């Protein structure tokens, strides 16, 4: 078996072996009550095993834990030694960002201390408050300094401080900051400074104090730039992870909402928050996301796109398996459906994972409008998708290979419009499509003041000049404009770009083999999509493989009728809400029970 796997791998290294594919579920049909129960039991066992492992590790570490922490620490009681090391690491005095503020504790004799922080990342008022309290210190009891053991502290300096103050007392009686942490090693001090906290080094102490004084320059919560809605909330994420988490928490006042933090990136050391609903989200999914995040070893992690590619099963795919969103309401909705959300500090987007293709076709507004309206809009979106994907390829196939499909009048019109056009229809279409891409790219990059000018030039050149000059026919212009417009109906930006790339290949296939080539390539595309999965969820679920509920794909049921969560996320509790949400409506009960209460009342 291993030999054949090696051969298969040699032939196609990109194809994962059956054992290597992580699968959340591939259950196909709706599971029976027995299967569902078994699944929940497995989830419970998994969580219990994790808890037991955690307890076991704690129990093993407990007797020696404190000692180990102290021994691992490389701070010395000599303030100068510690300070010199930090100065060397931060290139002080060349580096003007790090502020070093020496001061004395007003004991008798005074004890030297140094406050360090990075300018601009901290709240000056909070630093002043901490300093004020410590510097106005009344006479304190003196304590003997701890002797320095040269074996355990080889980096220790020549001087052995004689006096110090109780760190416990400073921490408990003097520090007004809400969050004070003891640090035992230089690395922790560096990390603390880099995230915007202040560090206080005290002479005679082998530990330092970290005070939470962070204050980043952030903008206020604004409107989403890419996911606008007519109705609904208008707030969007900003470039700071904490306010972003708060924006979600405001919508989910549920104690089960957990935020785990990871630090990723050797240089960037970016914070990544993993949000999920404990007890609802599949523990297997949470464990897998945690495993993938813990395994990322990047240099710089500064964008959600990079994070997305770092955790997806198929990062080279043109269609994403996770969804980037800037809307807190959408994030909360997906969390409630059992998805895991990742937030990266310094970015204004969250990453919902995993998602299916159908999720990428939905907008936050869908559920704010009436069900029938929402359904109609969703179908128009699917129509736009098909048009954007197949429109140009169909045009090429019909014009070049199946012209007899067209009604005679239309055929004659197209033939007449192309009479003096020197280029073949394929070149015409590709040139126009490329021009449209150029306009898009240009308008996205240039200053907004020039946008209207570029638009005017583009419309004049593309809309009038090329047709009048007989470089391209008007029909091609209409086809390209229509399909480009349809591409914008697809709500997800990455999906829209991916579809454009697929469209080009479909056009090429149609140009070579007409409808036959187009369909053959489309078959290949379907084959690819049904195999695509992210974090164990098939990309085309719940349609392929089939799982319940299906209702949200085409038609959009009202929110009060969506009683179960999507099956593909394998949530622990699949029931979203009770079977009858509108409890005041007797018809709801009657429908549920299959009999009319009103009819009975009449009788």
């Amino acid at each position, binding site marked *: 078996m291993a030999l*054949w796997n090696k*051969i298969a791998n040699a032939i196609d290294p990109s*194809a994962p072996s059956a054992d290597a594919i992580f699968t959340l579920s591939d259950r196909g*049909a709706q599971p029976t009550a027995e299967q569902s129960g078994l699944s929940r039991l497995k989830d419970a066992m998994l969580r219990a095993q994790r808890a037991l492992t955690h307890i076991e590790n704690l129990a093993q570490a407990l007797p020696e834990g404190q000692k180990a922490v102290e021994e691992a620490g490389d701070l010395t009681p000599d303030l100068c030694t510690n300070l010199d090391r930090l100065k060397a690491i931060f290139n002080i005095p060349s580096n003007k960002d790090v502020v070093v503020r020496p001061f004395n504790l007003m004991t008798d004799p005074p004890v030297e201390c140094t406050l360090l922080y990075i300018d601009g990342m901290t709240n000056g008022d909070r630093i002043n408050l901490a300093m004020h309290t410590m510097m106005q210190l009344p006479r304190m009891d003196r304590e003997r300094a701890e002797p320095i053991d040269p074996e355990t502290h080889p980096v220790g300096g020549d001087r052995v401080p004689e006096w110090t103050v109780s760190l416990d007392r400073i921490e408990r009686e003097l520090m007004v900051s809400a969050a004070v942490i003891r640090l035992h090693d230089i690395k922790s001090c560096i990390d603390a400074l880099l995230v915007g906290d202040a560090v206080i080094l005290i002479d005679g102490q082998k530990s330092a104090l970290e005070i939470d004084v962070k204050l980043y320059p952030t903008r206020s919560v604004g409107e989403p730039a890419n996911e606008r809605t007519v109705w609904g909330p208008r707030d969007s994420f900003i470039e700071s992870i904490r306010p972003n988490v708060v924006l979600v928490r405001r919508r989910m006042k549920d104690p089960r909402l957990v935020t785990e933090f990871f630090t990723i990136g050797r240089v960037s050391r970016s914070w990544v928050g993993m949000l999920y609903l404990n007890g609802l989200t599949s523990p297997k999914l949470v464990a897998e996301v945690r495993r993938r995040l813990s395994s990322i070893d990047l240099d710089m992690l500064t964008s959600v796109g990079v994070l997305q590619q770092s955790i997806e099963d198929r990062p080279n795919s043109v269609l994403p398996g996770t969804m980037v969103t800037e809307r807190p309401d959408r994030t909360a909705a997906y969390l409630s459906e059992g998805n895991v959300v990742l937030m990266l500090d310094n970015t204004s987007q969250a990453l919902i994972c995993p998602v299916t293709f159908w999720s990428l076709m939905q907008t936050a507004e869908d559920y704010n409008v009436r069900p029938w309206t929402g359904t109609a809009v969703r179908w128009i979106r699917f129509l736009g998708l098909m048009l954007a994907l197949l429109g140009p390829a169909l045009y090429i196939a019909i014009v070049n290979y199946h012209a007899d499909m067209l009604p005679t009048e239309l055929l004659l019109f197209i033939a007449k419009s192309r009479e003096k056009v020197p280029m073949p229809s394929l070149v015409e279409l590709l040139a126009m499509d490329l021009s449209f891409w150029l306009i898009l790219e240009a308008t996205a990059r240039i200053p907004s003041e020039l946008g209207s000018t570029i638009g005017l030039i583009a419309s004049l050149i593309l809309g009038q000049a090329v047709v009048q000059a007989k470089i391209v026919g008007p029909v091609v212009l209409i086809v390209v404009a229509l399909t480009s417009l349809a591409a914008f109906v697809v709500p997800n930006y990455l999906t829209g770009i991916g579809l454009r790339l697929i469209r080009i290949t479909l056009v090429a296939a149609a140009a070579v083999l007409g*409808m*036959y080539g187009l369909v053959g390539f489309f*078959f290949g595309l379907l*084959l690819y999509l049904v195999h695509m999965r992210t974090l164990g969820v098939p990309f085309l679920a719940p349609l*392929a493989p*089939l799982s319940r509920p299906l209702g949200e794909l085409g038609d959009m049921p009202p929110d009060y009728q969506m009683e179960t969560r999507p099956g593909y996320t394998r949530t622990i509790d699949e029931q979203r809400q009770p079977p009858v949400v509108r409890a005041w409506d007797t018809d709801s009960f009657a429908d549920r029970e299959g009999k009319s209460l009103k009819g009975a009342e009449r009788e």
Partner: protein
Amino acid sequence: MSKTHATTYGGHIEPRAGIRLIVITMISMLFLHYPVLAISWGGPATWQLVLMVLPLGLVIFWLYTKLANRFPGASLCQMAEAATGRLIGALLMVLVLVWLMGHLTLNLRDFTETFKTTLLPITPISIISLLLILCAAAAAWTGLEGLARVSQLLFVPIYLMLALVVVLNLPHIDASQYFPFWGFGLKRTALGALAFLPMLSEITLLLILGQVFRSARVFRQVGRSALIIYILTGLGMVLLLVGLFGSPDAQINPFALFSVARLISIGRWVERIEAVMIAFWVMAACVRISLLLYAACLHLAQLLRIPNHRPLVLPLLLIAEALSVLPEDFAAVLRTDQFWMQTAGAVALAIPPLILIVAVMRKKGGHSRAS
């Protein structure tokens, strides 16, 4: 049972996907010349012929189910080996493989010729064939799960298109074409049904793929439903063809369904939609060729006790492609296909019941209660 083979496919496919996969595989035959063959045997009463095939097919599949129940979880190779012994079993399975490869080869050429004639008359046949084999190779390489899911997605569009063709042609149907009621006579119709029966030989694929169905119940459900849907679709098609063209004309048109699609004309704007029709036809052909190739690879892998079918995809595909260019022209393809379907198909259809009889006589297997 002898030593257990390594399973070449670790997963399962759900019943609905299985039904749709088998149905699409079988109804893609209706796009070729097979309905015309049936009409040549049954004449105006071809619908009776098709209806007679249904119970016969169900009886044969019932025997298949008995065999599957007798050897639960085993592949056809394992069943043959366990029932008839290693040598005879291997010989029987080689016969099945030969049938499969012949079927694959002829279908490949048949579809290629059809697409060339109807869609791309000036394109070289090798180029047309290339796309089909590329699709088949990709599908067979990635496995049955993906193919089943693609079938699941394509099933409704294909049937919608078939329904559209039927509905839009209803005004052209002449009911008098169904008379004389008994066609060429009941005896000839019954004989035609027997001759047509090997067209169901593809249900043997169910036994070859048997391990992918979660249980014997799913196996039974998939096979029975697929047979019924296929026969009913075939019934609709022959009724349409006879009603539109009459049995004498329908017998001489190898692209009958294509011609049916060409008849559609509504308001001078919806006309000549055969290219759209062919889009679904091509997809059905891709599914069929892919499944046949996958089944051949899987069957050979089981026969040779190779744990993975993937190394066999390219060799078998090349053999099929090389063999498919042997017939001189389309007429030769049609003749060979008819002969192959009736002889090799009958053999393939008969082998599993034969294995069952031998197993019963030799008291092999016997897990008949396991499901």
